[in-house]
């Protein structure tokens, strides 16, 4: 199988030849790869070098942790790559942004109201969790479309609280 794996904007052509061989950008590596403890923890030997990594998926992005580094990777197989090629980029730009609760918590305040224009970095909502007040900011400029919560509300993890168009 051939994949295009992208980390920090750089693409790697990764071909999985068989259980023991991987080709990255034309260079062949001998690998020995096993999951550990029935967990998303992996031991990988690459040409004798040992890597003990935690790899998990978070909304289509693979997070890879080892040696103190965290790498965010997207992995596309050939079909997905072609599909994306035909669609072109730039769709995400104009999509509505949904502010979802990053953890369960208590809404402390919502300093914006529906229809209000916001700049990138403006505080949209203050959420209290683990005894900390966390300011959630707008990732881009736009207009507040809908506010679904009010101060005092308890929200669940990933619950949508408001949106910016």
């Amino acid at each position, binding site marked *: *199988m051939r*994949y295009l*794996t992208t*980390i*920090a904007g*750089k693409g*790697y052509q*990764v071909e*999985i030849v068989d259980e023991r061989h*991987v080709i*990255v950008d034309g260079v062949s*590596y001998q*690998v020995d*790869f096993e*999951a550990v*403890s029935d*967990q*998303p*923890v*992996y031991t*990988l030997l*690459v040409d004798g*070098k040992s*890597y003990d*990594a*935690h*790899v*998990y*998926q978070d909304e289509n992005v*693979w997070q*890879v*942790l*080892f*040696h*103190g*580094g*965290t*790498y965010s*990777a997207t*992995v596309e*197989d050939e079909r997905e790559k072609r599909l994306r090629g035909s669609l072109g980029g730039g769709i995400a730009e104009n999509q509505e942004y949904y502010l979802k609760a*990053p*953890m*369960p*918590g208590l809404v*402390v*305040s919502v300093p914006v109201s529906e229809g209000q224009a916001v700049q990138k970095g403006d505080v949209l909502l203050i959420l*209290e*969790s*683990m*005894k*900390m*007040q*966390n300011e959630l900011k707008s990732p881009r400029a736009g207009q507040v479309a809908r506010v679904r919560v009010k101060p005092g509300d308890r929200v669940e*993890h990933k619950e949508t609280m408001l949106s910016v168009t």
Partner: protein
Amino acid sequence: MFNKVLIANRGEIAVRIIRACREMGLQTVAVYSDADRQGLHVRYADEAYRLGPAPSRDSYLRADMVLEIARRCQADAVHPGYGFLAERADFAAACQQAGLVFIGPNPSSIAAMGDKALARATLARAGVPVVPGTEGEGALNDDDLLDLAPKIGFPLLIKATAGGGGKGMREVGSLAEMPSLLQAARREAESAFGDGNVYIEKVVEGARHVEVQILADGLGNAIHLGERECSIQRRHQKLLEECPSPFIGDDEAFRQTLGSVAVRAAQAINYVNAGTIEFLVDKNKNFYFLEMNTRLQVEHPVTEIVTGIDIVKEQIRIARGRSLHYKQEDVRFNGCAIECRINAEDPNNNFMPSTGRITHTLLPTGPGVRVDTGVYIGFEVSPYYDSLISKIIVWGETRGEAILRMRRALEEYKILGVRNNIAFHQRLMDSPHFIAGYYDTRFIEERFSLDADREGGTARQTDDRPDIAAILATLVAHQQTQRAAHMIQRNERDTSNWKWLSRWERLSK
């Protein structure tokens, strides 16, 4: 004397105290909220009683319930840990009235130091230098504070009078932004401590946060156990502590000066039990009293490891009316200790707290590594309490050895199920500024970056290997795809059973 201790706390510190009690042959009583029925403190204690629902105000802050449980199970002492009821003078007094030994200072000392403004005024009178601010002026309203601010000078800090741990704290750069920040600070203080009073204080620039651990018995003896360096902070939350301070290093004279000022401060208020005097120290080694913590602190283990003195056991001995186990000249400092606070928060997402069930963990062990934790595999990290899940404390003969050991401990440590800040600490251990001991309280927010390159350092031969990460991500994704394909195949087989069944039914008609 007492034989049964109720620990009015949860998490790692409750476990820490239970361990000390058990090693002293004392019976232990845990209390728990509904979120903590399976807490390690419940599992490890001799007895355990329910306080109430998960939110702190319905459980760990319910002084009345704690006292009722103590009465019911015939406990004869209470250890409050840190946070929750630890610095509530009324609770300490209520314990005494109920005939319980409160393992901590007298209610009057808690009261004297609990009001930060009053504390600063008290110590200023005793000749301890304090940071310029509205200390001792009581509860001022916003107008008064806005009036005083320019006289103190900017930048300044708004701090919660009842506060601690960075809650209700805001830094103010100019008069213009002060009103909204006052409002935010009061709101946070009100929510955290039930008291919205704040005071303001000059910002000491390039300051280090250095604190001195003291022990005082009820017989008039008081000693200090040297200092801890706590300048590695983010949003005024300590993230890492060291003993000794690399800034003080082997300036033994300065250490003894700070230590004796701390002892004098404790004696000025007839302090009994363990406590901490916090100082700000500027680059010229001018120092200012900041506040006194009239309780055990999160970071007490670094002092324990360097001095060999078990601070919790000393607290218990003092509360039992014994004289101190050590004289000042017995206190020796051996090597260096570093503590990293492992929090359930995501350094890659603005340190947002993370909750969930711990699905896997692999603890660092071996020489010179201590772990204090209240979590284990299967435990649910809830949103109700602070995000501290464990403390890694290492010892080294030198600070260099301690840093190298912390690196390997962090590399070994795995916690799955909640995001955590291990990677943050790993970057910190690689930071040339940190390694050089060249940092102040603003270091993390202003000069440190998770992206190693940006600090411009090359302290370690960076083994940044995105190609390996690409192989790992691809192999895992590939495996997942294969497994999904396999499951579809299996389902097809399952369907064939249905086909077989229907055929059989047709035949048997």
